């Protein structure tokens, strides 16, 4: 059982959670993720670690409510518990002195890119951040990103804040001006693909963090496999970071849509009575916490 010690809404539908997980807090490095399972009936989903405090024994995750599990998770508050949190999983991001680096992030991806940007800065790189969102109310962690970046550009699709346009518009300006040695892109698949198409032909080292569907997260199931350089790679153990120019984004998109119908059905069930689902989760986890032996569940 993993206790939520703090929550903070960051933007519309995006919420930050600080979770007590001492073993993970001690070992995690930027770019790694955890897998969570909310309760006895929950699915396992990967979430990137946004920050950690080894002394306090906590890890921070930032969650956008887009599926059943993330919606239900977003209803939880400090004092609630998550049944299972395991990690840190995946390879940490590669941190070296590259020179001038551009960190491109879209929406909730900013929370995932932030710890790597911070480490890139610590390693002596010049860090230019391009933070994108559809509109101002979906923008997260702008202050934190600014604090670790030499330059920060905010871009919104609708122009409600910062520059109007796409993150790739700004990236193109920087790339055309020359001198960019390294690009990290984390965000929606179309955004990462657009970044790869822009920087690939210029021979700029470009890394993307892939959000495949996972189950165990340790290489055991192969569900997260992606086509990289035309060969099958497991995002959970070979990634999640990959060379953007080698990734087959079309297959990634198709595989991420594999359970779309079931996901829709789950969301509808949750939305029919969210309070009941929340109550069920709390009761189930309370029963687990009190039980000396795992709770017997009926599977018929």
């Amino acid at each position, binding site marked *: 059982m993993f206790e939520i010690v703090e929550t903070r809404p960051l933007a519309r539908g995006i919420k930050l959670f600080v979770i007590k997980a001492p*073993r*993970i807090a001690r*070992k995690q490095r930027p770019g790694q993720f955890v897998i969570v*399972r909310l309760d006895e*009936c*929950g*699915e*396992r989903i990967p979430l990137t670690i946004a920050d950690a405090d080894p002394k306090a024994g906590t890890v921070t995750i930032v969650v956008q409510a887009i599926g*059943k*599990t993330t919606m239900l998770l977003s209803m939880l508050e400090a004092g609630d518990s998550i*049944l*299972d*949190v*395991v*990690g*840190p*999983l995946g390879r940490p991001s590669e941190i070296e002195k590259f020179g001038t680096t551009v960190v491109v992030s879209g929406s909730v991806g900013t929370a995932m890119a932030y710890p790597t940007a911070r480490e890139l800065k610590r390693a002596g790189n010049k860090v230019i951040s391009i933070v994108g969102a559809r509109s101002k109310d979906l923008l997260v962690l702008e202050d934190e990103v600014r604090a670790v970046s030499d330059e920060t550009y905010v871009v919104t699709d609708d122009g409600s804040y910062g520059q109007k346009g796409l993150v790739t518009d700004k990236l193109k300006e920087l790339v055309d001006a020359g001198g960019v040695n390294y690009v990290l892109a984390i965000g929606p698949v179309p955004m990462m693909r657009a970044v790869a198409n822009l920087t690939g032909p210029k021979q700029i080292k470009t890394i993307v963090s892939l959000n495949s569907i996972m*189950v*165990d*997260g*340790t*290489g*055991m*199931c*192969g*569900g997260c*496999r*992606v*086509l990289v350089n035309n060969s*099958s790679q*497991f995002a959970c*153990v070979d990634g999640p970071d990959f060379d953007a120019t080698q990734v*087959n984004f*079309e*297959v990634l998109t*198709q*595989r991420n*849509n*594999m*359970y779309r119908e*079931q*996901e829709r*059905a*789950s969301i509808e*069930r949750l939305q029919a009575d969210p309070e009941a689902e929340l109550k069920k989760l709390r009761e189930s986890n309370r029963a687990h916490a009190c039980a000396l*032996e*795992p709770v*017997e569940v009926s*599977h*018929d």
Partner: protein
Amino acid sequence: MTDKVPSNNPLPNKERIKLPRQRVPEQDAQVRAHNFCEVNLGFPAEQARQESLRCIECPKPGCVDKCPVSVNVRAVIDLILAGDYLGAASKVREDNALPAITGRVCPVEDQCESGCVLGKKGEPVGIAYLERFVADWERETGQFGSPVSAPATGKKVGLIGSGPASLACAGDLIQMGHQVHVFEALHELGGVLVYGIPAFRLPKDIVRHEINVLRRRGVVFETNVVVGKTVTIDELMQEEGFDAIFVATGAGLPKFLKVPGEHFNGVYSANEFLTRVNLMRAYLFPQYDEPLYPCKDRDVIVVGGGNTAMDAVRSALRLGAKTASIYYRRTEKEMPARVEEVHHAKDEGVHFEMLVNPVEFFGDEKGNLTSVKCIRQELGEPDDSGRRSPVPIKGSEFVVPCSVAIIAAGTSANPLIQSTTPGLAVTKRGYISASDDTLATSKPGVFAGGDIVTGGATVILAMGAGRKAAKSINEYLMGAPKVNAQEQATSAVSGD
């Protein structure tokens, strides 16, 4: 084992050998093909007695020799005949920490029952059914034939993984008086017993019961710890005070066929398919959240001929598949699956396509699997596993429509522990190198066994390794000179 014990069998041998083998009651094939309830219903007490009467009490019992954990079968059967079922259960537990499990999943035709002298002319004694009977009787009556533990030694042993090797090792180590702490990467304990073997073959409450028995005996379990990621073996030994470690992390990474189109939606590794169905209970969606690519009213093929393939294909059938087929590259004779599983699959309506191998998968514009191209094969010379290797027949390709394809073509070593543990030698195929005799690795205090040493094998072989490791770890901890870090960790035998 060979000393004369008074027998509770009233019949002379010539009467015993005339008795027919008892048939175990089963759920009707047409009914069970649509549910996840257990197929075998087990012997009632009278049938257990009837079957026990068949044992002719060999002075040198072949059944014991053929058992990887040397269960004293003859003594167990005699206790059943005496009506002392609890005593029989304790007798089994002296050698086997998980009798309710092995009684269900052991490949008995290659083990105990292959050693039964009755099998030479007729049918062997149904040893596994008897083992299962006493274990079930113990559980269902709420009793427990617990062996007595030795006084506490103050030594602490960490077991990595909670599958059969680890559980067997935990049972022996706790009895020897050591502290035992089991680390599991997943959220549920049992390893392959919960993520791999389906409920219709091994109900999950039985696994949970065996684990709770170990917990009551003092074993500590910690889930959600991926050793190598969450904590390393060096940290466990240097910072958390573990005196010895047993690595039993299982087989690991699924093998794909490496043919075009394996990325299409609907192509699964058997590991993923079974993990979703068993561990995550996707067959109970939407009551459980984990989704599964739909099998209902669709054509499902499973590539492979082992127990994992049988588990996958029978699960697909229960999920409502229109057709559920086994595609195997050799013939039925070479299939490594338990004979009983193959029979069950056939009775339930699984289709078997022998001597075929997929060469390409095809999908639609959405990336969903639509069909598979296969090639027919014939058997050539025996390969290094001793089985005749299949050779493709030129021009024999054919295309079959299918929506789900499950690849059960084996596994390879997961490098997680090996790559994060300095000083731990591995074989050329990436498995952990451990001494055949002691299961000691190249790293002092670290032992390894089960599939992470041998490659994919069986539950009972893993349990045998767990018991062997417990014995060596005990000798290592208690200062017996034999088991110090051996210099040359010999190469492990690799399974298939």
